[in-house]
């Protein structure tokens, strides 16, 4: 599902963010991407959801070679990838419904279809009663669930999460992780980047460890 071959990422001033990364994540896998802060976890995720191009190497997502993909084709590949961030990235001036509906509006779905889908996903994450609430009136856990709903509402093949529980207390963290496991059981490939060692030991999953931009365990 996700394959990286000898991938390098250099930013300006010659700083190497990633060095010679080769990994393979199979369809339906649940993987933790871990390592200390600044190890390159976020950079690696960014390459996976096509936010940035690699400096060198090949990336294959869902059968498409990202490095050879035309810019105009990228949006269509992105529709197969749901992304969740530590800071949720919800639009504060839009309701929960509108935030989640954005993903489907972008796909060109009908209003009727959007309503149905958004309702279903909000029910799944247990926030159907907060449909018309604005994000800032929700707790951190609720906001993260909304952002997960936004990432999943179009049923992507891959879910990438960057420190999704970084801002949440242990109980809420548990809720979110359970949600990820449930999604994974339904067939979605899940990659969670975290530096929370407790999380990794609690959930027994495959671990890829980064340090100074290199893989030290996979």
């Amino acid at each position, binding site marked *: 599902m996700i394959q990286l071959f000898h991938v390098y990422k250099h930013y300006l001033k010659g700083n190497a963010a990633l060095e010679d990364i080769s990994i393979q994540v199979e369809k339906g896998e649940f993987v933790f991407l871990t390592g200390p802060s600044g190890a390159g976890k976020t950079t690696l995720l960014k390459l996976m959801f096509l*936010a940035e191009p690699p400096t060198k190497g090949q990336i294959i997502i869902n059968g498409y070679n990202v490095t050879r993909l035309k*810019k105009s084709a990228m949006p269509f590949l992105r*529709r197969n990838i749901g*992304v969740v961030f530590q800071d949720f*990235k919800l*639009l504060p*001036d839009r309701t929960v419904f509108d935030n989640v509906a954005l993903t489907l509006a*972008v796909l060109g779905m*009908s209003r009727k279809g959007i309503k149905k889908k958004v309702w279903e996903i909000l029910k799944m994450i247990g926030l159907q009663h907060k449909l018309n609430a604005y994000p800032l009136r929700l707790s951190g856990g609720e906001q993260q669930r909304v952002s997960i709903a936004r990432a999943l509402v179009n049923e992507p093949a891959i879910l990438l999460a960057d420190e999704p529980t970084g801002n949440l207390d242990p109980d809420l963290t548990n809720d979110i992780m359970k949600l990820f496991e449930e999604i994974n059981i339904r067939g979605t490939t899940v990659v969670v980047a975290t530096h929370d060692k407790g999380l990794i030991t609690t959930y027994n999953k495959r671990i890829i460890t980064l340090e100074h931009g290199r893989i030290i365990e996979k």
Partner: protein
Amino acid sequence: MKPIERIAYFISTTLKGIKSNLYLNVVTIITIAVAFFILNIFFIIYNNVNSVLGEWKGRIKIIAYLQDGITDSGLTSIENHIKANTGIKNIKYYSKQDALEQFRAELKGQAGILNGVSADVLPAYLAITVKDSVLNNNTIDKIAASVKSIQGITDVQYGAQIAQKVSGILILVKMLGIGIGGFMLFAIFIIISNTIRISIFSRKDEIEIMKLVGATNIFIEVPFVLEGMIQVLTGTSISIVLLYLVYRLFLYRLHSTLGSLFINMNVAFISMNTIIAILIGSALLGIAGAILSTGKFIRNNY
């Protein structure tokens, strides 16, 4: 999404965008209105100067005085000689009697002076009108010289200097128009692209998320392009309404004041065709300005 739903989505997103940046939009629209107002005033001046000078131009004639006692065949031969010159529009013969009538008509109220003057005193003449091309390339001198050399013509008179001045003024007005107009349009283009740029920055979170969930660039850009178009169209419409008010209040009155100075002078408002052209042109300008910014800040992202 059905096409109608998509259009509704784009329009509502555009209006939301304008609403969220209302102050900026208002300032932009006012700036555009002022710029177009100046431009349109110039349009009016140009159109009117052009039509007045055009009329003057139409009045420029070469008057060729004929020898006394010229025969009909002699006259035909002279006319044929004149017609051999390129750029002759029309030749009209005035007999001695016609010349006297003409003179009387020109003197209007003081025609009494001519009492007792017989038509014999005045020479018969040919009034030659020339084509515009002659006035534009200043070949009227050559034609006049050639006419004067024809046997049977005693003298020629023509407003050479006026002809040249009229052409000169028209060219100057045109150049000035192109200069000022071009500068204004460029300024408006820059204003629009900057406003859209600010609009894009203020909604960059939304754009980032839209990209993240797989929105195509066109889908993201359309509301911004519409915003640019709406800004310019609103600004231009305001400027035209404002101009019309100014026209009714001041310029229209000018007509009666200047009417005595300039024969047939009528300060006209810009024509409907010009208004339509301005609106279409400005809408395209707004679209182009917006596309410049969206291209820089939306399409260039990976």
